[in-house]
Structure formats: C-alpha cells, structure tokens
C-alpha cells in the first residue's frame, strides 16, 4: 500500500466507527476504502477485456444494452392454462418482451392433477399442465414464433418441452424456429430446490438426450439454464452460489462430452440463471467473475473453439428470500436495488419479484409495478447508456477477483469428492448451504444484520393486503377436464406410445422423439413419468442440517 493510503488509514483509525459489522449479505467483511494498491496487479487485456472479448468480464456482447436492452421476462403462471394464458397476454401488452412459465407443484413433481398426491396443490404455485391440451390452451392466440419462452421445469423437463414443441407444431410452426429456454438443471435440485424424481444417472441421460435433440432440431433453444438462484434461496452465500453453479455447469459440459458430443456442439446453448440479492456490489462482482471463470475454464480446460461456447449468458431473478411479510411495500424498493445490480452486472434477461410474493402469487397490480421497475431502470436511470460502467472501480474489481479466487478454491474441494455427483452424495453442498442459512438467521436474531421492518424500524400496524387467491374450484375444473380428456382420446394409441417409451428408456436411444409421440397421443405427464419411474427408480435424499 502506498504512503498516501497509509496516511489516510491513520486518520481513519483515529476516528469513531459506527456500529458494525461491515459485511456483505454473505457475511464477507468489507474494508472502508479501496485504492489503486488493491488493483495494481490487474491487467486489462488478461483480466477484463473489452465487452464481447475474452475473458468477457465486461459483458458477453460488444454492444450490450446499447444494442439491445435485456429481456424483461416476468415469471408467471397459476391456476389453469386458461387463466395463465390471460396473464401472459396482459404482460405482453404491458411491454414484457419474453414469456416465462411457472408450473404448479404436481406438474413439477410429475403428477397429474387427479393424482392423490396432487390434492390441494393444483394450480397453486404455478399453472397446472397435465397434457398437450393444456399446453395448447396456455399459448392460445400467442404465436410461438413471435415470442421466446422460458419454462421453469426440471425433472420432467423433457416432457414439458416436448409438449411445447408439439403445441408449436399444431400452430404450424416448425421446431427450428422456436426460441426459449428450459431450466432442465437437475443437479441443483439435488443440492437445493429438491424437486427431483429420478436418481442422478438416468436424470443426466435425459438431459443429454435434450442437448442432442436440440442441437439437431431446435437449434435456437437454450437446452439448460444452469441455476444458482435456488441455491441462493436455500441459504447459500454469493460465493457458494457462484461456485456451485459453475461447478454444475462444468459437470454438464463433461456429461455432454461423455455422451459423445463435441463441446462446441452444445456449449453455445448452455445458459445460466442467477439470483440478485440485496448487497449491491457483491452481486455485481459475482456476475463479472462468473463470466470470466466460465470463459477461462471453457477455453483452457475443455478446449472450446467457438466463441459462443465461452460466453456465460444469464437470466436473473431478484431475491425472493430477501422479501419481508411486514411492510410489504418495502419489497418494491429491495427489488429495485437488486434489479439495478443485475443490470450493472450485465444480465441478458431479468425477472423482478412482486412485493406480495412473500405470501402469495403476484396480483395484477403488483406484477405491473415489478415490470415498471425494470422499465424505469432501463429508460430513466441512465445506467444503460454505457457498458459495464463500474469496471476499473478499485472496490468492484477487488471483489470480482476475490470471487474468482474463492470459486477456484471451491472447485478444488469439489474435485476431492470426485466431482459434483460425488459431492452431492456426501452432502457437501447441502451442508455448506444449511450452515450458511443458519448463520444468516442467527445474524438477524442477534441484530448483527439489520432487516428493515423485521428487526429494526418495525411497525406495529397490521396491514391488509389484497392478495391473489387461488379458487379451490380450479382444482375441480382441472380434474374434470382431465377426466374428459382421458375418455375422449385414443387410449390404445396412448398405451402403445407409452410402451414404446418404456422400451426406449430401458435402452440408450434418445427419448425425446418417443416422448413426443406419446405427447401427440395426448398421454398425460403423470402417465409418462410413471412409466419412466418403473425403469429409472426414484431418488431419496439424505438430510443434513
């Protein structure tokens, strides 16, 4: 450190400091000042690069938001396909530029709406999709070559994707014109979100089947959205979110290569999904470090040649776990700051949470505010006028470097377990996350960490909010539609296609075409999953605390 810095430090130390601790949301301690000495070793070309240039720290495109703003993509879905279809049309009319489908728990877990386990859960956290019929209704009057659609679905992703492709087929749109994403990231399910169905090996097979099918038939489709959002929501730190997500990414790359693909065949279509939590600078550093780490590993370790294989493109969602029940309007403010961090971090698309999501699905009013938040950010704040404005900041570049170092440290630890699957088996990630979650909660309770409205600036007033309610009638109507479908379809054809699917699952053929055949026959998701369960078995967790 320079003499200048030391003399400032002396003056600083002589003064009173307000009550700390001074740490990030992830409990990382932050210094009062960052100065040239901190970033003296940074080489612009080697460590930053211009936007759109290796190692892409400053952004994946050379023109970023000057060329095109991020996609404003609000996650939505509830009740039946009819109601969700209306909500999508509303959002598109209000200026949303991409669709994002939220499915209900039975659909996520592979159960039809009439299954006993689905009781009470149909349409509550997302839209109920049991068959192709529902998928067709979901996109009624929405031309699938005019929108890009992201579907948040994992264990049964192959089936829902097949339904989308066939629904487009029925609209007269060929698969090669479709754009969108399926989340399809099973590793993070084992680690954090826990909506699994099958054990790891058959799940990876389904994923590589999707990679292969997309490469040949749906080339504009992002076949996976490698996610850190859920890992963060489960309680991890920013660094863990970064490291575990990228580790998962590398695991998928290795799986694709092992399945016989050339890395450049599928890597360009790998996309990512991060959280944006409230610590402004920590999040920005995280995104920048992510791009750099991915580019370096893809080039140096996996030998990717195509530029597109080196680009870490990501969607961001603001942090659901940061929202509070009391004084719900404060959530609008939190979401705004989090959105700004994502944009300064160079996200390709963004979902902003609605203020009432801590207790229910968004009302029309709250989701409009959430969308407006992005629009104000894009058009009024000026942060989109220049690319990667924070580059060169002593603080931000230091944090970015620290993130990268920390991530590499984690990669080494994961290697010791023999990779991600081994580490999952030994509960490595799960334990790290549980510990971080517990520590965070304790910090709140000891008031080392202040959350406005929760442990400080508390208001005694009980507020009444107009929350979205899901009518129990939704479940009844969905079930009766399903019953009618099961009677009106060609059940012999359904049985045949299901038998073919089972046979294919026992072998090594790509399952997507067989799934599509069953989908066209109006086989239900639950029926297809049941058949696959017979062959693949079911996963069981080992809980850690």
């Amino acid at each position: 450190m320079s003499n200048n810095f030391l003399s400032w430090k002396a003056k600083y130390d002589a003064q009173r400091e307000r009550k700390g601790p001074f740490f990030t949301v992830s409990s990382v301690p932050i210094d009062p000042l960052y100065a040239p000495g901190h970033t003296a070793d940074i080489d612009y070309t080697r460590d930053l690069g211009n936007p759109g240039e290796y190692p892409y720290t400053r952004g994946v495109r050379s023109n970023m938001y000057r060329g095109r703003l991020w996609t404003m993509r609000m996650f939505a879905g509830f009740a039946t396909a009819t109601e969700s279809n209306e909500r999508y049309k509303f959002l598109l009319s209000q200026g949303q530029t991409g669709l994002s489908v939220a499915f209900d728990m039975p659909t996520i877990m592979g159960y039809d709406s009439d299954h006993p386990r689905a009781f009470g859960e149909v349409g509550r956290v997302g839209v109920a999709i049991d068959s192709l019929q529902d998928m067709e209704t979901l996109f009624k009057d929405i031309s699938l070559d005019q929108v890009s659609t992201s579907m948040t679905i994992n264990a049964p992703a192959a089936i829902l994707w097949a339904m989308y492709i066939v629904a487009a087929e029925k609209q007269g749109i060929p698969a090669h014109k479709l754009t969108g994403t399926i989340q399809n990231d099973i590793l993070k399910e084992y680690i954090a979100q826990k909506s699994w169905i099958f054990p790891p090996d058959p799940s990876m097979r389904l994923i590589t089947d999707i990679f292969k099918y997309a490469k040949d038939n749906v080339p504009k489709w992002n076949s996976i959205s490698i996610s850190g959002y859920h890992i963060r929501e489960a309680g991890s730190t920013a660094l863990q979110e970064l490291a575990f997500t990228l580790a998962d990414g590398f695991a998928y790359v290795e799986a694709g290569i092992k399945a016989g693909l050339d890395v450049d065949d599928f890597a360009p279509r790998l996309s990512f999904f991060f959280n944006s939590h409230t610590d402004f600078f920590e999040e920005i550093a995280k995104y920048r470090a992510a791009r750099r780490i991915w580019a370096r590993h893809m080039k140096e370790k996996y030998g990717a040649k195509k530029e597109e294989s080196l680009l870490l493109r990501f969607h961001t969602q603001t942090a659901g776990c940061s929202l509070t029940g009391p004084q719900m309007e404060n959530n609008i403010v939190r979401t705004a700051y989090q959105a700004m961090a994502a944009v300064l971090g160079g996200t390709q698309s963004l979902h902003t949470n609605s203020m009432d999501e801590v207790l229910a699905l968004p009302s029309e009013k709250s989701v409009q505010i959430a969308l407006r938040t992005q629009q104000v950010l894009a058009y009024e704040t000026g942060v989109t006028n220049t690319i990667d404005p924070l580059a060169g900041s002593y603080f931000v570049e230091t944090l970015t470097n620290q993130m990268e170092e920390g991530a590499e440290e984690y990669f080494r630890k994961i290697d010791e377990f023999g990779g991600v699957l081994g580490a999952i088996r030994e509960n490595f990630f799960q334990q790290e996350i549980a510990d971080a979650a517990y520590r965070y909660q304790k910090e709140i309770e000891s008031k080392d960490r202040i959350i406005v409205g929760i442990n400080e600036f508390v208001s005694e007033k009980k507020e009444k909010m107009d929350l979205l309610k899901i009518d129990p009638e939704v479940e009844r109507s969905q079930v009766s539609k399903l019953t009618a479908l099961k009677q009106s379809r060609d059940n012999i054809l359904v049985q045949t296609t299901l038998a073919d699917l089972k046979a294919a699952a026992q072998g090594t053929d790509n399952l997507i075409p067989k799934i599509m055949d069953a989908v066209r026959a109006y086989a239900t998701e639950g029926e297809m999953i049941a058949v696959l369960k017979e062959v693949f078995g079911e996963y069981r967790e080992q809980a850690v605390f």
Partner: protein
Amino acid sequence: MNKTRIRVLVGKPGLDGHDRGAKVIARALRDAGMEVIYSGLHQTPEQLVEAAIQEDVDLIGISVLSGAHMTIFPRIKELLKEQNAEDILLMGGGTIPEEDIETLIESGHVEALFTPGATTTEIVSWIKERVTAVKAEVK
C-alpha cells in the same frame, strides 16, 4: 441424566421441496434443548401423523410454502382426531396470508402460524411456553 425433553416433529408435507426454513427451525429447536424428529420431504398427512404418534411428540410443526395450507392443516388435525391423538399440538409456518392464518386458528385447526420474518427465538419461546402449559394441565 434422563431429563424430560420436549419432542417435536418438524414436517414438510406435500410436494414442495423448499426446506430452508424447516431445517433452520429444526436446528434452533435442537439448540434450545429439544428433540427434533425431522420427517423429510414429500410427506403425506398420514405419514406425518403416524410418525407423531410413534415418536410421542408434544408438537407437530409443519412448513408449507406451496399454498396448500387450507387443505393440509385440517387434514392433519382430522387424522390426529381419528387416532385419538388430539393432545398433540399442531402449528406451523410458511407463505400463508393473514386472512388464512386467522381462519385456521379460529376454526381450531392450528395453534399458531408463523410467517417469513418470524425469528427462531420467537418460535422457540412460543413452543416452550405452550408445551409446558399443556403438560401442566395433563398432570
């Protein structure tokens, strides 16, 4: 050193897999000296009630984030009644609107419900007070 302990079943009913809250609570209850039987994910009400009976817990604490609370709590209460185990207290937490909390408590289906923002300290105190009071009544 056989001291009486408060025994709690912490459960995740239904299809929702978000267990951050349930696990943080389980740990906090353990740190407060209680014996916590953690049910694991994807439990049916039948599985939860059976576990509660075999483990002779004082209290069942359920975490529901899937919006299915209006069916799940009454169902568990019903099963407890069928098994003559109504003395086992039922409470929980999750994404539950105020209105629904009032309905569930007034109808006697639930003793208490905590929403995001409630601290583990609050929850631990509530459990200790309530269970101790109930045990005193029984004696």
